[in-house]
Each structure stands twice: as structure tokens, then as C-alpha cells.
């Protein structure tokens, strides 16, 4: 039977929306279940129910206060923020050089940076450990800032260089004619134009630092210097045989919220950052 145009359109939309629903469910369900679990206690935890049945905020108190997640949160915020700060500062200046200043070996350097960003963490763990020891940063937050910056920089430099290259040279020359020095040009002309790219890469660096586990586990031993992912993994229940699912989930929710808030705040910027430069205008 031949369908009318309207029926076909309806069919299309049905496919699109049902597909979208499945995708959203798939992405959001784990987080939803975490929230659900964090609000339960005792035997409720092990019942397969998909709707909230009571609100027990106790888990949050346990996670934040008793297990010292509050302290770890502070550490994480500190480490991630400093990492992002250093990353952006270094990568903006580096990308300016890579995109604008002609020098020998520029292409090679850029290519090396790209290669470095593909290294798996485990591969450099030992080397990084030696470096951290050598610099006397073992068991301090500095070790994490150092290692996260090292891992975020190649990516940020690469992305920002690409963006920087898309800025017309005439704009820089106009600023030179206007009497601006290099640093002023970077700060007053390039940085504002690059804002979407800065936000996007900065956010990715933040998330990377926020979620990182292996370095955080290796370089820190003192409990009060742990970052959140490690702290959560160290949760202990009432007995050795009990995994405190409730408070683990409560902590996980608390840890996820800042990222979600950040993404929502910068949402518009990220979208324009990811697409701008892709097409002209």
C-alpha cells in the first residue's frame, strides 16, 4: 500500500524519536540508578525497584562527613582548577607560537605533540613516578597537577593551534599597526576570539583531571590528600564484608554534579566551540 506524504513523515519522526529515547535512556540510566541507590538503605539496596521508595539522606552525610569525601572534593577542585589554569595559559601561548611564529621544525613539533597525546597512561606511569620523586612532589597535590597538565597539554595545544590558525593573519597585523605588542595581541585580540575553544578545551581538561584515577592512586598515600575517585574506592562499610553501596552512590552523585553544572553553564559556548571554524562564517 502506498503511504501518503504525511504518513511517511510521521513514520520518520517515530523512528527518530524512538531512537533518541533509547539513546537517552542508555546514557542516563546509570546515573539515575546511582541517584536511586544513594537514597536507599539496608535491604532496599538489593531490591530491583526502578522508582524511588523513600528518601534517606543519611548516605550523603556518611559519604561527605564520615568518609571525608568533603576533603577529597576540595582536593579535586583544587587540582582540576590549577591544572586547567596552567593548561590554558601554556597552550594559548604555545599555540600562538605554533600557529603564527614561523620557525624550523614547527610541523615536526606539532606532529610530535599529536603523537604524545596518544600515549596510554600506564606506559608513562613508571617514568612519571620517577619524575615526581625527583621533583620531591611525591604524596602532594603538586604531583597530580604536574601529571594531569602533562596529559592534557598535548590535546589543548593541538586544538587551540588549529583554532588559532583559522584566525585571519590580517587581524593580527591590524593589531600590530594599532600598536599592540605580542602579549597584548594574545590577551586582547586572540583570547576573546578563542573563548569558545578555550572553554571547550578547558572543560575537557577539567573533566580529565576530575575523573583521573591511576595517577591519583599511585602518587598519593595520605588520606587527606586523596582526590575523589580514589577516596570513593577506599570507602569501607561497617564490616570488611560489607560494601557500602548507599554512600558510594551518594558520593558518586556529589562528584558528578559539579561537572554537570559546569557543562550546563558553558553549554552554549561548548557547542559553538566544537563547531566554529568547521565552516566559514
Amino acid at each position, binding site marked *: 500500500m502506498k503511504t501518503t506524504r504525511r504518513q511517511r513523515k510521521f513514520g520518520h519522526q517515530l523512528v527518530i524519536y524512538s531512537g533518541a529515547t533509547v539513546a537517552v535512556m542508555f546514557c542516563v540510566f546509570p546515573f539515575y540508578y546511582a541517584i536511586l541507590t544513594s537514597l536507599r538503605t539496608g535491604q532496599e539496596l538489593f531490591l530491583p525497584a526502578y522508582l524511588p521508595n523513600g528518601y534517606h539522606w543519611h548516605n550523603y552525610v556518611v559519604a561527605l562527613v564520615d568518609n571525608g569525601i568533603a576533603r577529597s572534593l576540595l582536593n579535586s577542585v583544587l587540582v582540576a582548577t590549577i591544572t586547567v589554569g596552567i593548561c590554558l595559559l601554556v597552550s594559548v601561548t604555545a599555540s600562538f607560537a605554533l600557529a603564527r611564529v614561523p620557525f624550523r621544525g614547527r610541523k615536526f613539533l606539532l606532529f610530535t605533540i599529536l603523537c604524545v597525546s596518544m600515549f596510554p597512561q600506564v606506559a608513562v606511569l613508571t617514568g612519571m613516578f620517577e619524575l615526581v620523586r625527583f621533583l620531591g612532589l611525591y604524596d602532594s597535590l603538586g604531583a597530580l597537577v604536574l601529571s594531569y597538565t602533562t596529559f592534557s597539554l598535548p590535546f589543548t595545544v593541538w586544538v587551540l593551534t588549529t583554532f588559532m590558525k583559522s584566525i585571519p593573519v590580517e587581524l593580527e597585523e591590524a593589531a600590530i*599597526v594599532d*600598536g599592540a605588542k605580542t602579549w597584548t595581541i594574545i590577551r586582547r585580540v586572540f583570547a576573546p576570539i578563542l573563548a569558545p575553544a578555550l572553554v571547550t578545551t578547558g572543560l575537557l581538561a577539567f573533566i580529565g583531571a576530575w575523573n583521573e584515577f591511576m595517577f591519583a592512586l599511585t602518587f598519593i598515600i595520605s588520606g587527606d590528600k586523596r582526590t575523589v575517585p580514589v577516596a570513593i574506592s577506599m570507602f569501607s562499610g561497617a564490616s570488611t564484608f560489607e560494601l557500602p553501596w548507599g554512600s558510594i552512590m551518594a558520593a558518586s552523585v556529589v562528584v558528578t554534579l559539579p561537572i554537570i553544572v559546569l557543562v550546563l553553564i558553558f553549554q552554549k559556548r561548548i557547542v559553538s566551540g566544537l563547531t566554529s571554524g568547521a565552516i566559514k562564517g
Partner: protein
Amino acid sequence: MGQLVLDKISKRYGTSSEVIKPLDLTVNNGEFVVVVGPSGCGKSTLLRMVAGLEEISDGEMRIDGVCVNDDSPSERGIGMVFQSYALYPHMTVYQNMAFALEMAKLPPTEIDKKVQASARILQLEHLLDRRPKDLSGGQRQRVAIGRAIVREPSLFLFDEPLSNLDASLRVQMRMEIAALHKRINATILYVTHDQVEAMTLADRIVVLNQGQIEQVGSPLELYDHPANLFVAQFIGSPKMNLIAGTIAETGERETVVDLENRQRIVLPVDTLGGKIGDSVWLGIRPEHVQLIDLAAADVEGEVLFVEQMGNETLLYVNSGYGSEPLVIRLTSRLEIAPDQRVGLRLPTESCYLFEVDGRAFGRI
């Protein structure tokens, strides 16, 4: 304020040959000088050297008698208008214009006064709070000019400022630039590849070719007395027709030339520098060729194409001279079909004569 002297300046990249060959040029105070040339002739490089964006390899550049070779662009006291406008996209029109003054560390009240004054000159007052993306092409161009004049430079540099605009806007901006030049009596060095802009705007035109000045002169001087074949063909549109010939008789006031087809023509040209039997090029502009009866024609040929523009008609005639058709430009409307045979007259007073190497014989 504002005399520019280029004293044998040249440009070389690394050890390769010169992009700009040693070149002398003086732009007098208040003069509007246009540099034209085909793309790749080095005109933009020349402008960028004057601006200070490109280093001068050799020679000396002076502004008001002071050597500025080693000065940065901002120290040279120039204002530059870029082809792509190069407005700061994240700043308002006001901020765009104020940026240079901020860099010069002027007090805010002074900055405000100057920006307002420049905005008034360019009729930008109502746009000061907008961002470049909210402006039309012509408005952006005006802001770009505003950014240059706000610093009260002694010399303005324009790098093909109109080539991004559509045709009608281009004509309008051309008039605005001419009016602006009169109003603020600025010294202007203007680069373009468009000879119409050059002819209409310039006090003097510099024709540049392969990094070398071919001729400097007023627009009509270049049109009437081109120094060589290059200038003759570059100025004027459609370009000048050329017919090969040989000198049959030299003279100070009259020269007899045999054309390719043995046709003999007497021109009021001084050929004392030439010899009998020398090969020459006879040039005639499309607008000077006349259409006449076949019987009285100097040259006859077959019409290849007709281009009707409404206000003028272009005929392409295969005359048997060389491989290229003769182009004839008529201001009258004419019903003429391809393949029709037409008679042409080459008025001797409108002919040009060039040596084979391109140098022009003096016209009387």
C-alpha cells in the same frame, strides 16, 4: 604632515631574487597615489613594507624626512585599511576605533573625543555600540577607515579596500574615499588591481609590474602617453589592440608604418630613435577605432562576436592581423550580426607606436 619618500628600497626573501627591485617613489603631502598592477606584481608587498609589516631589505624609507626603516608600524604614524577589514569581531565599533588610542595610552576623555570626531566624519555615530557582525559590508569598510583615521596618521595605507564589496557599493565607497581625502587632506598610498579605482581616485598612478615601476603619472598621462606596451595594455578596458608592422620612414613629426598586410599608414609619432625596417607594434584603443564603409576602410574584417551592454557595444573583429581579434567599442547601439564584413578606420591621431621591446615612441 605626511610626505613619504622611498629611496631605492627593495625586498628579497632569503637569497632568492628580488620581489621588489630597487624602487624610488615620493608621495607628497596630501597626495593620493594609487599603486596598480596585475596580481603578484609586488604591490601588496610594497604596501606592507611601507606599513612596517614586512622588513625592507635594502634602501631607505623616510616619512617627513625621518628615516623609519627600523620603526615599528605604530611608530611610523601610519593608518592602514585592510582588504578584509580585519575588524576585531569581539569589540564594538567604538572599541575597535579606540583600541589604537588605548595602546598609545591616551586618557579616556581624549580617546572619547577622538573616536566621536572620527565617527562624525564617517557618519558612524549611530553604529558605535554595534559589533562588526551586525554591520553591512560598506559600514564595516567605514569602520575600518575610521580605525585608521582616529589616530590622525601622517600617511594612510589602503590595501585593496574595495575588492570585497559588490559592484554598486564599490562605486559608492569610491566616492566616499575621494570625498574623505578632500575633507581631511590626507596623504594616501592606495593599492589595487582595479584600474577603474586607480583612474578615478588617483592624483598620480604608479604602475607596478614584477616588482618594478613601469610608469608614474597622472591618470590621463598614463592613458594618453603610456611609457611602454605594458602600461598601454594595463590602463584602459578592454585593453588596447595591437597590430604588428615595420617602420617605412622615420621622422620627428611623422612616421610611415607598413602594417602586416602591406597597408601603409602615416602616424604623428616621433621615431627619430628608430630605424627604417624596425619591427614595431601599432596600438589603438577599442574606443578609438571607427566603423566605416568597406570602400573607405583602412582595415576590413569579419565580425566574430557582438557584446551588447546597452550603453555600449563591443565588436570582436577578425581582421587577419595576428591571432587575436581587434576589439571595437562603440557608444552607439548597433544591430550587427556575426560573420558580417565591416570596414574599420584607425584614426592616425589616436594611434600609439611601440618598439618590439615594448618602449613607446613619443606621440605628438
